[in-house]
């Protein structure tokens, strides 16, 4: 069974229609890049899959085990986050909020897992540092570690390399590739970087006004 399946979905918000007739399937082990013009609906597609928006028409079927917060999401950073007082550890722990449900506190296992995810991202030593004092690349690793706490199966990444310098960009791509190859985590990544998409992604989805095409 597909992890995510879009059945004749029309994307948009309020009275603006973006891409129509989106038929698309994401399966185990895959690495997708989503490309397209600004405003074509890439982020909207991602938000619709996550349930942050309703599709204007059509159905999105989410596979068992991913329902109710089993998808790891790395959103674009907001302005407010750049001067938010929060430690790296606090942010990574918030990845467990879906699993915790109404339980007010996090468990020992979750704390251990969070440290493990920090290690995977190579930022264990930043644990007690303040998020706003980190470099752009380090901040993205923190958000990636948080997304890993929410899922072991699939990551949806909205422009994870936006604003990073070439070296950090390359490191980020390598990190994501490692997660896909070594941990079998499905990657769906929005990017403007055509060259990197063809280098890393197994499959590319192009979002346009009249729908999507698979390259």
């Amino acid at each position, binding site marked *: 069974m597909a992890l995510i399946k879009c059945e004749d979905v029309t994307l948009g918000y309020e009275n603006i229609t973006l891409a129509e007739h989106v038929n698309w399937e994401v399966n185990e082990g895959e690495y997708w890049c989503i490309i397209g013009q600004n405003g074509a609906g890439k982020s909207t597609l991602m938000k619709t899959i996550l349930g942050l928006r309703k599709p204007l028409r059509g159905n999105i079927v989410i596979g068992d085990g991913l329902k109710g917060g089993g998808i790891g*999401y790395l959103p674009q950073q907001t302005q407010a986050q750049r001067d938010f007082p929060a430690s790296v550890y606090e942010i990574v722990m918030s990845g467990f909020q*879906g699993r915790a449900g109404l339980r007010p506190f996090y468990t020992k296992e979750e704390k251990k897992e969070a440290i493990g995810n920090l290690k995977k991202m190579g930022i264990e030593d930043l644990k007690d540092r303040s998020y706003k004092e980190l470099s752009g690349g380090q901040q993205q690793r923190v958000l990636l570690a948080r997304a890993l706490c929410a899922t072991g199966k699939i990551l949806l990444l909205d422009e994870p390399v936006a604003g990073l310098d070439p070296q950090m960009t390359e490191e980020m791509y390598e990190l994501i590739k490692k997660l896909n190859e070594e941990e079998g985590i499905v990657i769906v990544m929005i990017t403007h970087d055509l060259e990197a998409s063809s280098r890393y992604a197994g499959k590319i989805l192009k979002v346009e006004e009249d729908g999507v095409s698979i390259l």
Partner: protein
Amino acid sequence: MSELLTYLQYPFVRYAVIAVVLMSLCASLLGVTLVLKRFSYIGDGLSHVAFGIIALAAVLNISGNMFFVMPVTVLCAILLLKGGKNTAVRGDAAIAMVSVSALAIGYLLMNVFSKSANLSGDVCSTLFGSTSIITMTKADVTLCAIASAGVLVFFIVFYNKIFAVTFDEDFSEACGTRPEAYNLMFACVIAVIVVIAMNLVGSLLISALIVFPALSAMRVFRSFKAVTVCAAVAAVGCALAGTLASIVLGTPVGATVVASNIVCYLIFTAAGKIRG
């Protein structure tokens, strides 16, 4: 010092101190999130709304007007905090519009219909906090205590969720948390605190209790937990210092508490600079 101890022997003085401390504590806890969510002015807006509603209640001769003022203020809080989406007038503009409208209409109503001989005195005490703080009854203090206990429980039980939703609403929603529900609860709690605290420091000064402790704490600390704890401690300290000073010096309670918060902010700013 001995003068202070003499004053503290009177129960009504003790009530006033307890009430100001509790309300400052609650306001500071909520303030951390409000400042970070860019909603610093919501307390100001809501207290003006409450001012308008109190005026209306007085005109309508509704006795025990707390039961009228509270629900309407809660409703306004919900509308203002939800206001981000699907409204013609957004965020800060909506707060500005609603708050000045309520202020103007409230004052109008009081002028046209008031039977009081000392209208400007009434208005002044609603805006800047009244001497009624000294006439607080045991029932008033009990109400303060119950409300504060409620806020503390809400804050501790949902602490992790409040942090998560404040830091990243989209991520929270993708995780299956419902940020709308938390925003709604938050709006209700703020409205309740604003209405109660209004009687203490007045409707123009309530914002200070909400924003100052959080801003002071953010000058020095860099993690959410440290900022929250520090804001709470600073708020209680300023409330105590301010109220006691006002008793000894005979100054207005609300204004003195706010002044001590300003001093605290300046000290924290200096400390933050030194810490680098």
